Structures are given as structure tokens and as C-alpha cells.
């Protein structure tokens, strides 16, 4: 039996003798061979169909075997040739072998087995040749793609390298050598540790070893020593390249210089820290300063009140003049105290120390008291204040802070109300308290509506209106610390309306106001 091949070879039988062809056909029936009765017919088949083995008579009319072979060499994928020579065509047979024929058989053919064996050998040879050729083509392609990859890697701006599956580095790109100033011999395998910083090298080795064990990609930031001896930070990423069977074949790594970005990031972070500290320091100073200012102010206020009290008691006509002066001094001192308290509140709220002490408060009652207190001031400014309120609006709030809110809004409306009537409304609905303070004064330009609640801001030139511009800022801090909202709507020349909404029972934590802490943005 002929050696069987894994694939069924395609066979072409060429002979001008039909009887011979029939003999061949019987021997090779299992391969379903193609038949041609002369060279031209064979050429036609060969140009149309890929054939593995040709059994070809040398002596044929029109086109003989050798001519057919010569034509085939340049015009079709190379089949294996078995030439059949009769007596006296030995020279032709030798010529055929020189042309690359695989074998030759002398006529008459001894047996079917002989033919089968020769054809099988040729077929197997053809198969081997094909395999070798294909492999060679593939190798060339691989080599070419490797060359392209190498060129790509060599020209990368990053340091790049590759390692065997066991982590032994056997290639570094040009950039690596340029940066580190090392030679391959120095850094081959695990020699790269020489350019790492002593503090981090153990960690790098540990992480790299773990990646090698688990097959997980490696990513780490570490410094590498340059040729000039200074270290720069790199971000290094290494990925495994896996075979068809999912086993790791190689590792590919790149190290990207992130030194500048890292330094910039560190500087930025430091700047934010410094800025925060500066802001905190300023607020701390404000807090201490205003606290310290308060004590002598209180003593001063008491002295002024005491003096006025005595003068009243003595009831001497000349004292009236002194009383008027004292009243002015007293008013100025009170004003000073308000400013100092404002500063303290601002400092506290930005330090997150605006504490709330919830108490059962009737907002209507409280508003009524405030309005009563400021009626003389309103009178001096030529306005009236009208209160329109529910019988009571009770809630759980910090009494003093809520009083501050009402006071700030009422004094604000007196200040900017242009002597026109002021309306105050206190109502409640659905668990919320509403406080609306409306004046008909100068109003606020649309562009400034957002700013009025900011620190040290006011919507009018400070030349015409005194104060530090803290009132509405503190008011909003207090309202928000109570979990509420404050809004303003206004039309220039037609006054402003401030609307405060707070829950009747807000969820108050003792130290509210943290939302205002150090909002530093860079």
C-alpha cells in the first residue's frame, strides 16, 4: 500500500495513449485524477486548476512533456512531476529531472502498486514542500512585522523594553539608553535595578515579581536615574503578550516621563494647602480680633449708658446737650459693635464654628420685636414698616440667629428703601416658614443679584452706603445652617424682595455651617 497522506492529492494524468490513461486511472481511481490526452489539454487544466502531482508522458504530439514542464515552471503553482519515458527517451527523462521532476518511471509500468507508490511519494513530497514554503513565508512576514515593531519601539519618545516570560529583560529601546546612559550588558535581565532609587527599588522588584507570578499587568510610578545622575519620575506600564494557548510569551513595558506633570501637581497641591491655611489664618485672626474688640466695646457701651442714665437722673437743663452728644456716641458704639459682631460671625462661619442652639421660637413674635426696635430708625429714614403675619409661626430655630436674619433684612430694607413703605410678611405652609421683606427703594441690578449674598459685597458703591457688606452673607449662612434658603428678586428703582424659607423643624446638628468652610478653588 502506498503511504497515505493526510490530504487527498489532486492528480493530473497526461498521455496520448488512451489505453495507458485507462491503466493509470484504474491504479489511481481513489484520487479521482484529471485526464489529458496531450500537452495542450494538460496546459489548459494546469492553468485553471491547482494540481499537486502530474504523471506525464514525455513523447506526445502538439506539445511534449518537457515543453509542458517549462511552461508550468513559470505559469502555475509548482506541482510535483513524475515523467514517464519509453525506450529511447532516457535523455528526455534526464532533462526532465534537471527541470525539477520528482521521479521518473520507465514504460511499460510494472504494476499499479509501482505507480501508486511513486504518486504517493510525490504527493507527500509536495505536501512537505508546501508546508516548508508556507512556514518560510510566515517567518518572513513575522520577521518583517518584528522589524517594523522594533523600529516603532526604537523611535518611541518613551523608554520601552521587553522581557521574556520569566521577566528577564532582553531588549531596551534607544530612548532607554539615551536617558539612562547605560549599556545593554549593564541592564540586561534584572540589571535595571541599578538606575532605580534605593528607597523604591525593593517595592518595584516586589510588584514586578508579583506581576510575573500572577500575569497581571504592572503599573507603577517611580524615579529613574538619568545619565546626568539626577532622578526623574516615570509612569511605567507593563503588559503581557500571550500565545494562542493563553500562556505568556513576552512582557512589553514603557516608562513615560511624568516628572514635570508630577512636580506641577505637587506644586498645585501645596498651593491649595497654603491658600487654605492663609484663609484659615485670616479667619482665625478675624475671629480673635473681633472677639478681643468686643470686650472693651461692651465696657464702653456700659459706661456710655451709665453716663446717660446719670445725666437723666440729675435732671439739669444743661444736661440735655450732653445727652444728645451721648446719644450720638452711644449710637456709634452700637454701630461699631454690630460691625465687630459681623466680622466675628463671618470668621466663625468660614471656620465652621457657626453654632446653632435650637429653641422653640415664634417667628412672628420675634419679627414683631425687631420691627418695634427699628421703628425709630425707620421713622428717621422716612419709611413705615408694615407687618402682615399669621397669628404665630412656631419652629425649632436658634433664636439669636433668626433674630439676626430678621434684623439684617429689616435694617437692609430701611437702608436701601429710599424712604418708601416696607412690607414684612411671616407665614407658614406645609411645614415651612416664609419670611418676606419687601422694600420699594433703589433695587438691585440683575447682574448684582447673585453677588449680594457674597462676602464683602454690596450692590451699591460703598461710598454712599456704609457697612462691611457682611449682613446678607451672614444672613444666608444662618439660613443655610438652618437648612433653609434665601432668595432675592428685584427691579432697579422699584425695590427688592427677600424671601427666606426655613423648615419649622429643621434637622439641626450642633455644628452647622460647615458648608461654608474654606471654599477655596484653584
Amino acid at each position, binding site marked *: 500500500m502506498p503511504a497515505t497522506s493526510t490530504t487527498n492529492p489532486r492528480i493530473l494524468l497526461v498521455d496520448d495513449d488512451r489505453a495507458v490513461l485507462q491503466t493509470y486511472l484504474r491504479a489511481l481511481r481513489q484520487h479521482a485524477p484529471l485526464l489529458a490526452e496531450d500537452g495542450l489539454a494538460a496546459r489548459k487544466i494546469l492553468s485553471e486548476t491547482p494540481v499537486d502531482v502530474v504523471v506525464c508522458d514525455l513523447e506526445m504530439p502538439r506539445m511534449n512533456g518537457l515543453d509542458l514542464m517549462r511552461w508550468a515552471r513559470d505559469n502555475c503553482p509548482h506541482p510535483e512531476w513524475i515523467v514517464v519515458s519509453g525506450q529511447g527517451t532516457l535523455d528526455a527523462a534526464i532533462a526532465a529531472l534537471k527541470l525539477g521532476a520528482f521521479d521518473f518511471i520507465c514504460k511499460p509500468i510494472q504494476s499499479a502498486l509501482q505507480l501508486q507508490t511513486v504518486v504517493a511519494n510525490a504527493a507527500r513530497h509536495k505536501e512537505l514542500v508546501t508546508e516548508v514554503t508556507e512556514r518560510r513565508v510566515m517567518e518572513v512576514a513575522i520577521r518583517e512585522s518584528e522589524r517594523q515593531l522594533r523600529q516603532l519601539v526604537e523611535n518611541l519618545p518613551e523608554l520601552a523594553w521587553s522581557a521574556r516570560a520569566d521577566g528577564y529583560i532582553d531588549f531596551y529601546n534607544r530612548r532607554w539608553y539615551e536617558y539612562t546612559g547605560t549599556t545593554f550588558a549593564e541592564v540586561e535581565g534584572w540589571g535595571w535595578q541599578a538606575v532605580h532609587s534605593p528607597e523604591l527599588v525593593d517595592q518595584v522588584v516586589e510588584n514586578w515579581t508579583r506581576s510575573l507570578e500572577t500575569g497581571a499587568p504592572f503599573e507603577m510610578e517611580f524615579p529613574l536615574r538619568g545619565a546626568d545622575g539626577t532622578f526623574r519620575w516615570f509612569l511605567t506600564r507593563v503588559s503581557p503578550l500571550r500565545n494562542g494557548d493563553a500562556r505568556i510569551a513576552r512582557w512589553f513595558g514603557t516608562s513615560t516621563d511624568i516628572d514635570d506633570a508630577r512636580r506641577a501637581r505637587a506644586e498645585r497641591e501645596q498651593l491649595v494647602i497654603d491658600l487654605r491655611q492663609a484663609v484659615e489664618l485670616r479667619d482665625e485672626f478675624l475671629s480673635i480680633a473681633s472677639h478681643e474688640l*468686643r*470686650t472693651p466695646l461692651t465696657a464702653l457701651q456700659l459706661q456710655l449708658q*451709665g453716663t446717660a442714665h446719670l445725666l437723666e*437722673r440729675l435732671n439739669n437743663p444743661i444736661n440735655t446737650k450732653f445727652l444728645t452728644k451721648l446719644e450720638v456716641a452711644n449710637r456709634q458704639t452700637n454701630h461699631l459693635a454690630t460691625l465687630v459682631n459681623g466680622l466675628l460671625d463671618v470668621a466663625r462661619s468660614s471656620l465652621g464654628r457657626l453654632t446653632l442652639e435650637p429653641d422653640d421660637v415664634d417667628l412672628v413674635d420675634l419679627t414683631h420685636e425687631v420691627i418695634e426696635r427699628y421703628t425709630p430708625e425707620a421713622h428717621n429714614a422716612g419709611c413705615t414698616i408694615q407687618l402682615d403675619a399669621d397669628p404665630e409661626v412656631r419652629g425649632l430655630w436658634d433664636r439669636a440667629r433668626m433674630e439676626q436674619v430678621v434684623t439684617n433684612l429689616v435694617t437692609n430694607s430701611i437702608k436701601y428703601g429710599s424712604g418708601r413703605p416696607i412690607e414684612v410678611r411671616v407665614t407658614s405652609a406645609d411645614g415651612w416658614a416664609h419670611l418676606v421683606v419687601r422694600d420699594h427703594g433703589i433695587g438691585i441690578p440683575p447682574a448684582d443679584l447673585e453677588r449680594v449674598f457674597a462676602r464683602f459685597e454690596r450692590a451699591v458703591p460703598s461710598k454712599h452706603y456704609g457697612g462691611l457688606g457682611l449682613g446678607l452673607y451672614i444672613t444666608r449662612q444662618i439660613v443655610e445652617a438652618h437648612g433653609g434658603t434665601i432668595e432675592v428678586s428685584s427691579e432697579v428703582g422699584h425695590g427688592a424682595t427677600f424671601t427666606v424659607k426655613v423648615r419649622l423643624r429643621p434637622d439641626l446638628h450642633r455644628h452647622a455651617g460647615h458648608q461654608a468652610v474654606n471654599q477655596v478653588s484653584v
Partner: protein
Amino acid sequence: MSEITCSGILVVDDDDDIRDTIIQCFGDEGYEAAGARHGKEALDKLRSGGVLPCMILLDIMMPVMDGRAFRAEQLRDPRLSDIPIIVVTANANLGEVEAELQTAGALRKPVSLKQLFKVAEAHCGKPTGPGWTA
């Protein structure tokens, strides 16, 4: 109702300016007033004999002995425990402080002269001294 007779007011506050001003104002009005810089000094003064005050104005935050500690000591001393205390605090919730220290009253910082005279009159009656005269 029998007339309350004043036997003086003790002002306990660590701030010299505030304390002296309050004492001076009480004096001008015709009340006897004395001062102590902290709870310990106040206790020493009260225990050194003599007439007890009819009211103590007590600050909370003080060095050496604060207002709370003083109040606790005072309540332990049967000779002193009945003296009415008016606590002066920065805490807005006066009711809470009053309840905690069981005081006769509480004033919110900063105090006004009107408030001081009001509590003095309530606990010491009308001033008995001549007060300030020209």
C-alpha cells in the same frame, strides 16, 4: 410683702474692664458692689465672713474656677446656697443655662445697663445708697 434690703452685689467676671464698669455703674446707681476675678476668689470672699451679698452676677467662662464649678461649690455650702445667682452667658438659650445651673436668672452677653438695673432691683430692691452726685 416685706421690703428687700440690699447687702451688696458680687460681680464675678475675669475681664477687669467689664467687671469694674459694672461695679461702677451699680455704685453710681446707689448699690453696694464688689468684684471677684473667678469662682475661687468669689468663694474666698464669701467665706471670709462679713455680710453676704443679695445677688451674684456670675460669668461662665473664667480661669481657675469657672461659673459652673463655682455654682456647684456654692450649692454644697449651706451658708451660701441661698444667694440668688444671675448668670451672664454668651449662650443664646438662656432658659437652658438657667435650668442647668438652677439660677435665679440669666442675662445674655453683651449685657445692657437696663438689664443690670432690672435684675438688681428684683433681687436687691431699690438702691439704698446715695449713688453718684454732682
